[in-house]
């Protein structure tokens, strides 16, 4: 190994490790709502599940479908969020039954390893992104800097979708594809139980 890359690497490491002011107060930077938005899908599991389900479905259909679905979902989510935050007059949110039903439908396609046409995937991402984005927009409408939070949400969605789609594209044979299908099965099962949970009181009465 030559000396120069070793020296450069160590210099870079030293620069990165140099102690600096923490800048821990997001109140000063104004980026608090953005990070709140980024965390939102990870504490609101229906959002995370639908993104994962769509990502796996799109990835299973191939890299081209994955790329189109990635930008379709993010754009639709952003558009829906804008509508929900700024233009929707009546109060509206996506119910758990509706969210879980959408997750169930997409997850069944993943579980069954169905070859979904690209147009259908794009339609699904557009519809789902709009609905979920609109619901998020409504949630954040009353918050100050709600727009910043929504940017964080869409950023997070984009990142999760990118990683999950890439994983699904790479897992196109053997045991890796089985793992993807098992994940789909788990999401479908969880969403079906959640639907039953919500309907429990209705049927019990």
């Amino acid at each position, binding site marked *: 190994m030559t000396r120069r890359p070793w020296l450069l690497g160590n210099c870079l490491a030293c620069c990165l490790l140099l102690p600096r002011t923490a800048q821990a107060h997001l109140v000063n930077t104004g980026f608090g709502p953005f990070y709140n938005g980024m965390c939102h899908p990870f504490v609101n599991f229906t959002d995370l599940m639908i993104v994962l389900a769509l990502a796996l479905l799109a990835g299973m259909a191939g890299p081209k479908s994955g790329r189109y679905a990635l930008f379709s979902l993010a754009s639709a989510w952003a558009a829906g969020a804008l509508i929900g935050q700024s233009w929707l007059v009546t109060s509206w949110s996506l119910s758990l039954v509706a969210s*879980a039903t959408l997750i169930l439908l997409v997850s069944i396609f993943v*579980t069954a390893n169905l070859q979904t046409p690209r147009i259908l995937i794009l339609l699904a991402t557009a519809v789902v992104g709009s609905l979920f984005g609109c619901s998020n927009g409504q949630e954040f409408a009353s918050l100050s800097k709600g727009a910043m939070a929504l940017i964080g949400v869409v950023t997070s969605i984009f990142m999760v979708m990118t990683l999950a789609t890439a994983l699904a594209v790479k897992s196109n044979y053997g045991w890796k594809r089985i793992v993807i299908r*098992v994940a789909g099965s788990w999401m479908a099962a969880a969403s079906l139980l959640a639907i039953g949970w919500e309907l429990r009181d209705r049927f019990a009465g």
Partner: protein
Amino acid sequence: MHLRRLQHSVALIAIVLAYPDVAMAHTGDSSGGMLSGFTHPINGFDHVLAMVAVGLWGAQLGNPAIWLWPVTFPLVMAIGGFCGLIGLAIPGIEIGIAASAIVMGAMIALEAKPKLIAAMIMVGLFAIFHGHAHGTELPEGENGILYSIGFVIGTGLLHAAGIILGLVHRWNWGQSAIRLSGLLIAIGGCYFFKEALS
């Protein structure tokens, strides 16, 4: 080369150990929903026996059962759970659960290899029974989606444990061990069958 691998391993372990984790000490909040759901299938020994037996039998049967069971079982079980949640009655649930351990344990002990469709119907039926029992047992007051996620993961991991244990099937001693496990599962099922009848 070995030193580099060691360095990579140490670095990876250090990252994992340094990863900040939340204590999750308050089980009354939404995190309690997922934890409760995760522990629910593990708390019933009859369920544990049957879930591990599904994985073991799948490993014993080999391809395609070894991957078909983990793919389809959670979903079929959720159908049973859905029926239980909405109050759709299925007779003889406890007997069916006990029978699942007896039958699958016997299948494993005898190394029975029925036709795939017959095995699928059998496993599917047992999945409905187990799911229905879980559906009626689900507690009030938890977060539905979180509980469901935790429950499905807990059940899935039990299957995975059965499959991993079943991988010893490649060795002669492993085959004997699996058959003995099947016998023990069937005996356990007989106990639960007796309890269900009394």
